[in-house]
């Protein structure tokens, strides 16, 4: 009897919830936890965590392994929170682009408000935990990077200027600085150069992608460089930025902040990057072009960044241990 009443109450509670849900347009079912995971853009977080870890390992001094783990966890949480806020704000545009239409909010698997709450909670927790467990400089940089991505890039730059990726690239460039600050409590020349590497890597990386998905961006009115300045100008800029990137990547070796292990690796990897960028920069895509050089540059640029940062760590953390 009692269990029957409980069951009746449970059903009426669910029916009450369902009535509330149907009253809210677009809300179908409570989101699955996998949708919250997808909201954090796990693919991007992989690169963020890796560069943050490299900044942490390359920094002079030591950090307790648990505190180091917490620092990296906070970087990942901050990046995930910023990604959730980005998807909350851009859900209407995401619904119109083939590449993003299956994200949790545009696909109707998640309520926008849930994404906003999740993003704010994740970002807030990451900054507070970083401050309490690691140090407040790292926490402040983390907070600024979340603000940079979620507000400066997503709300201000992206819909308003074709330079969105150039200036907005700064948002993804903070993790090595945060990793460094977590160990040393300050920011010196090398972490600033690591920031600059990601900053100047972003335009050729992203414009290579924009060249083969430009119709998506044009459809939703986002002023990406190929749609505003034209394909030819974008291609020239991809090549131009690859040269700036080469100079930036070689700067730590030229200033004596890293050794020859990094210098040689960085030069070889960057020469390949410039060669691939030159192929993209000085060609004209015809009708029905498969855009293979652009896809190759995009794929290589991801591997390139991983290897450059791995070379920094090997040079600063592994080689001295072997030499000793």
């Amino acid at each position, binding site marked *: 009897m009692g269990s029957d009443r409980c069951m009746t109450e449970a*059903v009426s509670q*669910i*029916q009450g919830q*369902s009535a509330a*849900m*149907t009253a809210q*347009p*677009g809300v*179908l*079912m*409570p*989101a*699955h*936890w996998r949708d*919250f995971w997808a909201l954090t853009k796990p693919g991007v977080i992989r690169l963020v965590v890796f560069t943050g870890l490299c900044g942490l390992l390359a920094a002079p001094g030591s950090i*307790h*392994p*648990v*505190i180091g783990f*917490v620092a990296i*966890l906070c970087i990942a949480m901050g990046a995930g929170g910023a990604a959730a806020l980005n998807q909350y704000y851009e859900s209407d545009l995401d*619904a119109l682009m083939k590449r993003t239409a299956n994200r949790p909010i*545009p696909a*109707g698997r998640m309520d926008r408000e849930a994404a906003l709450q999740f993003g704010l909670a994740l970002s807030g927790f990451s900054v507070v*935990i970083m401050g*309490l*467990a690691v140090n407040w400089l790292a926490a402040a940089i983390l907070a600024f990077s979340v603000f940079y991505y979620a507000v400066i890039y997503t709300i201000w730059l992206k819909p308003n200027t074709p330079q969105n990726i150039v200036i907005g690239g700064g948002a993804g460039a903070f993790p090595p600085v945060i990793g460094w600050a977590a160990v040393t409590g300050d920011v010196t020349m090398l972490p600033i150069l690591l920031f600059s590497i990601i900053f100047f890597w972003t335009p050729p990386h992203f414009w290579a992608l924009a060249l083969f998905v430009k119709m998506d961006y044009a459809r939703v009115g986002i002023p990406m460089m190929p749609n505003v300045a034209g394909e030819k100008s974008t291609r020239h800029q991809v090549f131009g930025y690859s040269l700036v990137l080469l100079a930036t990547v070689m700067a730590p070796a030229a200033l004596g902040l890293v050794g020859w292990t990094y210098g040689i690796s960085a030069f070889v990897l960057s020469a390949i990057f410039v060669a691939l960028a030159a192929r993209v920069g000085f060609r004209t895509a015809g009708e029905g072009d498969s855009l293979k050089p652009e896809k190759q540059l995009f794929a290589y640029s991801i591997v390139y960044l991983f290897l450059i940062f791995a070379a920094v760590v090997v040079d600063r953390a592994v080689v001295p241990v072997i030499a000793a």
Partner: protein
Amino acid sequence: MTDRPTPDFNDPQVLAQLRARQRSRALFMAGILVALCVLFYVITIVKIGVWG
């Protein structure tokens, strides 16, 4: 987003799906809370210098 069909929550299958999702989210949230408790505990241990 407004033109999507609304699920019929009187359908037992839909209701079961709703319950399964609520259960999975509750378990996931519980897991996160436990992980945070363990994390704060370990951070405290490290900070007071007992371990390492």
